[in-house]
C-alpha cells in the first residue's frame, strides 16, 4: 500500500485560486475604500472647520447702524462758549446721545424703559460724537445727523442670531426693544453697512466696538522682529554648516541639536522667554520685541533646515567653476552659491514665518494676553497678536464675540494663505532643474 502523494492537478490549483478570487477582490475593494474613506474624513473635517468659521464669521464684516439726530447743546459741553478743546473733550456726550434717543421715542418715561432705550445704541456712540465735535468745533450748537453703531445685542438681533420667537426672558432683546427697532426701521433710521471699525479699532469690552487693528499691529511688530533676527541668523547658520563647517563632533552636536530644537513644543520656548528674557534680563512684559525674540528662536531651526536644503541643491559644478576661476571659498559662497540658493531660503523663511504668525502658546507665557485698547506704536509697547486676540475673544461670553472671533480667524487664515501662496509662487518661479 504505497500512497503516492496526490499532487494536485493544474486544474485543481486554478479552481482553488478561482474560489478565493472573489473574496480577494472584495478585500481589495474594501481596502481601497478604507483609503478613500480616510482621506474623505480628513477633508470633511477640513471642510467643516472652514465652513463653521466662515459661516460664523462673515456677518462680523457688517454692522448695524442707527441714525440719530443729536443737538450738540452748547450749554452742555461748552458752557463758557470759547471752544476750548480741553473743555470740549470733557463734555457729557452720552447725555446728548440719550436726549436724541428720547426725541425719537418721546413716550418713554419709566426708568427701565429708558435704560432699554439707551441700550439700543453702542456706548461708543458718545465717543464718535466727541471725536466729530473735537475735529470740527463749529458743530457745537447745531443738530448733527449721525450714524452710530447699534449695541451688540441689537446687532445680533438684526443679523438673525437672536430669534423673536424665543420667550422674552430667555433672550437678551426685550419685546419693547424689538418694537422700537421696527419703528426705527420704518423711519429708515436703521441700516447695515460695512464694519470699518473692526479693521481700524483696538480691542474693547464692547463687541460692537472691538477691532483687530491693535492685534494686527502687534503681529506686524512681532513679525518684523522675527524677520530681522531669524532670517539673517538662519541663513548664516545654514551657510556655515553647509559650506564651512569641518566634519567633527561639534558640528554633529549642532546638527542633532537643530533637528531636536525643531521638534520642541512651542510652549517650552515660552518658558524660556519668561525665565531668560523677562526674569533674567528684565525686559518688559507683553512687548512685541520679546514675543519676536521668542518666536525667532522657535523659527530659527526651520529656516536653518530649509536653508541647508537649498544650499545642497546648488550643484557642485557651480562651486567648482567659481573655485577654478580663482575665487576664494567665501567669494564662491557669497557671489555664486548664495544667490542661487536664495529663493529656496526665502521659501523656507516664509513658511517658518507663517508658523510663527499662527503661534499662540509661547506668547501667553510672556504676558501678551493683556487686554490692550491702544494701538502699539513701537515694539516696546504692550501689545497682543492676532492669534492671542482670537484666544481672548473666544473666552468672552457675549454672542457677538463668537462672530468676531470667527471673523478674526478668517483674517488670520487669509494672511496665512497669502504667505503660503507667496512661498509656492516663489518656488515655482525660481525653481531650477540642474
Amino acid at each position: 500500500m504505497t500512497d503516492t502523494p496526490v499532487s494536485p492537478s493544474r486544474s485543481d490549483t486554478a479552481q482553488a485560486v478561482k474560489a478565493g478570487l472573489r473574496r480577494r477582490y472584495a478585500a481589495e475593494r474594501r481596502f481601497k475604500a478604507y483609503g478613500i474613506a480616510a482621506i474623505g474624513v480628513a477633508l470633511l473635517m477640513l471642510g467643516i472647520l472652514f465652513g463653521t468659521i466662515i459661516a460664523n464669521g462673515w456677518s462680523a464684516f457688517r454692522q448695524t447702524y442707527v441714525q440719530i439726530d443729536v443737538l450738540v447743546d452748547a450749554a452742555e459741553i461748552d458752557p463758557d462758549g470759547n471752544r476750548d478743546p480741553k473743555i470740549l473733550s470733557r463734555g457729557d456726550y452720552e447725555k446728548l446721545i440719550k436726549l436724541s434717543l428720547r426725541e425719537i421715542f418721546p413716550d418713554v418715561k419709566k426708568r427701565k424703559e429708558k435704560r432699554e432705550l439707551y441700550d439700543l445704541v453702542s456706548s461708543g456712540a458718545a465717543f464718535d460724537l466727541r471725536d466729530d465735535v473735537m475735529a470740527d468745533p463749529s458743530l457745537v450748537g447745531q443738530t448733527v445727523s449721525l450714524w452710530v453703531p447699534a449695541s451688540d445685542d441689537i446687532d445680533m438681533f438684526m443679523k438673525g442670531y437672536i430669534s423673536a420667537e424665543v420667550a422674552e426672558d430667555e433672550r437678551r432683546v426685550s419685546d419693547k426693544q424689538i418694537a422700537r427697532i421696527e419703528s426705527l426701521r420704518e423711519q429708515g433710521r436703521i441700516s447695515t453697512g460695512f464694519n470699518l471699525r473692526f479693521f481700524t479699532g483696538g480691542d474693547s469690552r464692547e463687541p460692537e466696538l472691538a477691532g483687530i487693528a491693535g492685534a494686527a499691529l502687534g503681529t506686524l511688530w512681532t513679525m518684523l522682529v522675527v524677520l530681522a533676527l531669524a532670517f539673517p541668523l538662519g541663513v548664516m547658520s545654514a551657510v556655515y554648516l553647509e559650506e564651512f563647517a569641518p566634519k567633527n563632533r561639534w558640528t554633529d552636536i549642532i546638527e542633532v541639536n537643530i533637528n531636536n530644537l525643531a521638534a520642541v513644543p512651542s510652549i517650552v520656548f515660552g518658558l524660556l522667554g519668561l525665565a531668560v528674557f523677562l526674569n533674567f534680563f528684565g525686559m518688559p512684559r507683553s512687548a512685541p520685541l520679546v514675543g519676536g525674540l521668542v518666536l525667532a528662536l522657535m523659527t530659527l531651526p526651520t529656516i536653518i533646515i530649509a536653508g541647508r536644503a537649498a544650499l545642497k541643491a546648488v550643484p557642485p559644478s557651480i562651486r567648482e567653476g567659481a573655485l577654478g576661476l580663482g575665487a576664494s571659498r567665501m567669494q564662491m559662497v557669497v557671489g555664486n552659491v548664495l544667490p542661487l540658493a536664495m529663493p529656496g531660503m526665502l521659501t523656507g523663511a516664509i513658511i517658518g514665518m507663517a508658523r510663527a504668525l499662527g503661534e499662540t502658546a509661547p506668547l501667553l507665557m510672556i504676558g501678551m494676553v493683556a487686554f490692550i485698547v491702544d494701538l502699539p506704536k513701537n515694539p516696546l509697547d504692550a501689545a497682543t497678536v492676532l492669534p492671542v486676540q482670537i484666544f481672548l475673544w473666544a473666552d468672552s461670553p457675549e454672542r457677538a464675540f463668537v462672530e468676531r472671533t470667527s471673523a478674526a480667524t478668517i483674517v488670520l487664515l487669509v494672511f496665512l494663505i497669502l504667505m503660503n501662496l507667496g512661498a509656492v509662487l516663489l518656488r515655482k518661479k525660481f525653481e531650477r532643474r540642474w
Partner: protein
Amino acid sequence: MLLLVLTIVLLALTAAGFRIGRGRALALVGGRPKDLSALPRYYGWYVALWGFLPTIAVVALWLALQPTMIETLVIGGLPDELRSLPDSQTGLIYNDIRNAIAVGRLPDDPRLADAAAHYASLIGRAPLVLSALSVAILLAGAGIGLRLVTPQLRARSRVEKIVRGLLLVSSTIAVITTIGIVLSLLFEALRFFQLVPITEFLFGPKWSPQTAIRSDQVGSSGAFGAGPVFAGTMLISVIAMAVAAPVGLLSAIYMAEYAAPRVRAVLKPLLEILAGIPTVVYGFFAALTVAPLVRETGGLLGLDVASESALAAGAVMGVMIIPFVSSLSDDAIAAVPNSLREGSYGLGATQSETIRSVILPAALPGIVGGLLLGVSRAIGETMIVVMAAGLAANLTANPFEAVTTVTVQIVTLLTGDQEFDSAKTLAAFALGLMLFLVTLTLNIVALYVVRRYREEYD
C-alpha cells in the same frame, strides 16, 4: 524711536567707514589697485568691521545690563531704613518708583522722592549716554582699522576670517537656545523640588496648585502630585492618536499606492492645509463646535458627557496630527523600492495583499517614527487643550469626562499675576521640564527607530 535713529546713524557711519577705508587703501598706492594685496573693497570692509563689531557688542551688552544696573543704582540711593529691607521688599519699592515715573508723577511715599528723581534722571540720560558711547566706539574702532590699512595688509583673508567667525557664532545660537531651555527649566524645577519632593510630584495622586493665602481658606491645600495631570495628557494623546493614526496611515497608503499622480497632486496639498492651520483656530473650533456636538450626541445616547470632555479636545487634536502622520508615512512608503512591489505582483498577490504583507512591513520603521513624532506633537500641543479641555485634574480613563494636561496647567499657572518664587509658579517649570524631557525622548527614539531599523535595499 531714539534707538531707530541711533541704528541708522551707526549704519551710516559704518558705510562711511567702508568708503574711507577703500579710498585710503587706493590713495596709499596712488590709485593703482594692482599694488594692493587685496581688492580695494576688502580694505573698506576691514575698516567697517573694525568700527561696527565692537559697537554692536557694546550696545547689546548695555541693553542687556541696563535694567539691572539702574535698579542697583536706585536701590543703593534709597534711605538706609529702606535699603536694609529684604530683596523682595526693595524690589517692590523699585517697582513703585518705576510705575510712578512711567505715568509721570512722584511716588506716594515721600521717602522715595529722591530715589524717584534719581531713577527719572537715569532713565532720561541712559539713551543719550548710550548713543554717545556707541558713536565714540564706532569712530575709535574705525580709526584703529584705518591706521592698520597698509598696501601689504592681507585684507581679504582678514575679512573672510572675521565673517567666518560670525557664521560660526550664529550657528551656535541654536545650541545656546537649547542650553538656555535646559538651564532655565532645570534651575526653576530644582527650586520647586526643594519645596515638593520629586517622588510626590511624579506619582502623587492629587493636584491642586492653589496655595492658601490665608491658613483657614477652603480648598487651597496646595497639593502638587502631578499624577492626574500626566494621566490626562496621556488620555488625550491616546484619543488623538486613535484618530490620527488610522486616518493618516490609510490616507498615506491610498495616496502613495492607489491615487493617480494628478489626484495626488491635489489631495496632498489639501491635507497639508490641516497642518498649516494655527492651533488656536483648532482650539476655537473644538470649543465652539465639536465639544457641544460631542456633549449632545452623548446626551442622546444617554451618556453623561462633560462640556469640556477629553474626547472633543482629543479628536480635534487628532485631526491636527493627521498630516504629520500621513506625510511621514507617505515618505516611508515611497522609499520602498519598486522591485519589492513587482516581485509580489509577479507572485500573484493583489495590490492590497502586496501593501499589507510586503510594503507595510518594509516601511514599518518610518511609519513608527512618524507615529512617535505624532505622539510628541500631541503631548506638547497647547492651545487646543487650553481652549477645549478642562482645568480640574481628574484621574480617569473615561473620555467623556474632563481632564487636564501638562500644557494646560503650565498656561494656567503662569498667566495671571503672581510672584515668581511661589511653588505654584515653579511647578509650571517642573511640568515644562517633564514635557521637554518626554518630547525630546520621543523625538530621539523616533529618529533612532527610523535609522536603526531601516532596511537597506540598494
